[in-house]
């Protein structure tokens, strides 16, 4: 089976994740959409690994997962801290840096 369908699927998932980041207001859901985008790119990497016949793609996907984990940890801690202060998890609340 060729790798193109997988890559196309990855592109679709990535797009959906993008739209979600732009549209959702709950900070945690936005974060989840970002995770979706990362996962989509992981799929693409694994597909390319199979197509090219070496494991570099899988190693890269592995590293993406590790970094995603670290990112989630810190990001959620930040969201929680903000929530404690502002009592709201909406991304629209932090809008003071405007004209």
């Amino acid at each position, binding site marked *: 089976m060729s790798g193109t369908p997988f890559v196309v699927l990855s592109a679709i998932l990535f797009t*959906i994740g*993008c739209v979600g980041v732009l549209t959702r207001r709950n900070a945690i*859901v936005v974060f989840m959409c970002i995770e979706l985008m990362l996962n989509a790119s*992981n799929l693409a990497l694994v597909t390319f690994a199979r197509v090219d016949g070496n494991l570099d793609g899988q190693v890269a996907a592995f590293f993406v997962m590790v970094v995603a984990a670290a990112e989630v940890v810190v990001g*959620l801690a930040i969201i929680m801290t903000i929530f404690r202060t502002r009592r709201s998890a909406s991304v629209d609340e932090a809008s003071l840096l405007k004209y």
Partner: protein
Amino acid sequence: MVAFWILSPIMVAAALGLLFARKAVHAALLLAVVMICLSVLYLVQNAPFLFVVQIIVYTGAILMLFLFVLMLVGVDASDSVVETIRGQRLMATVAGLALGLLLVLGIGQVSLGAVTGLSQANADGNVQGLAQLLFSRYVFAFEATSALLITAAIGAMVLAHRERLTPKLTQADRAAQRMRAYAEHGTHPGPLPSPGVYARHNAVDTPALLPDGSPAETSVSRMFTVRGTIRPASASDVRMLTASVGDAATTDQERQGER
């Protein structure tokens, strides 16, 4: 290939559901679905190690982190349907469609070439192959990401730490508080009865019944009270208890005598 064509509609549907779900918990669960399907796709593509790691680390750890924070932040929080920023939804949809179109177009123009397959690379086994790469070519990245993980953990601790703003109450303070409460409001100064002493049912949302048949409010979580999902105790239990109160009360010994 079969797996792909079955799983990809599910994945896309779940992703769209994540996009449109009103409640955050639903979104998290749909994301879990996507991730599990992804792991199966990894398996299909000769990446068993990643299949396992995806399930354990990504779905099992990271998604659970999400759910925990959701619980802390408030599971009830739901986005309103109305968009606050003018034109944002329209522009986002347009941009998203454009992005998707461009990506698919680009992919369509590119030919990936013949699939080499991982039979050669996985000759010693997928895990061994990955390990060989990881500890030779990517060892520096490996060490760096481990440092990153440690830093992230410490960072989370620092961020989540709450400074104690008031001095910690000692045991003596607590005892004094309890006595004062008893003196002023008549609250019981002693400890609460152990769980199960007054329980009449195993369910967590069924309150325990006090000796006079009334339900003990402190025996169910406040959440149930707030939500109004407390189950009433069984009628026979209530009858038996109320029967033992007042004139109609019969002691256990009398009851045993009747029998």
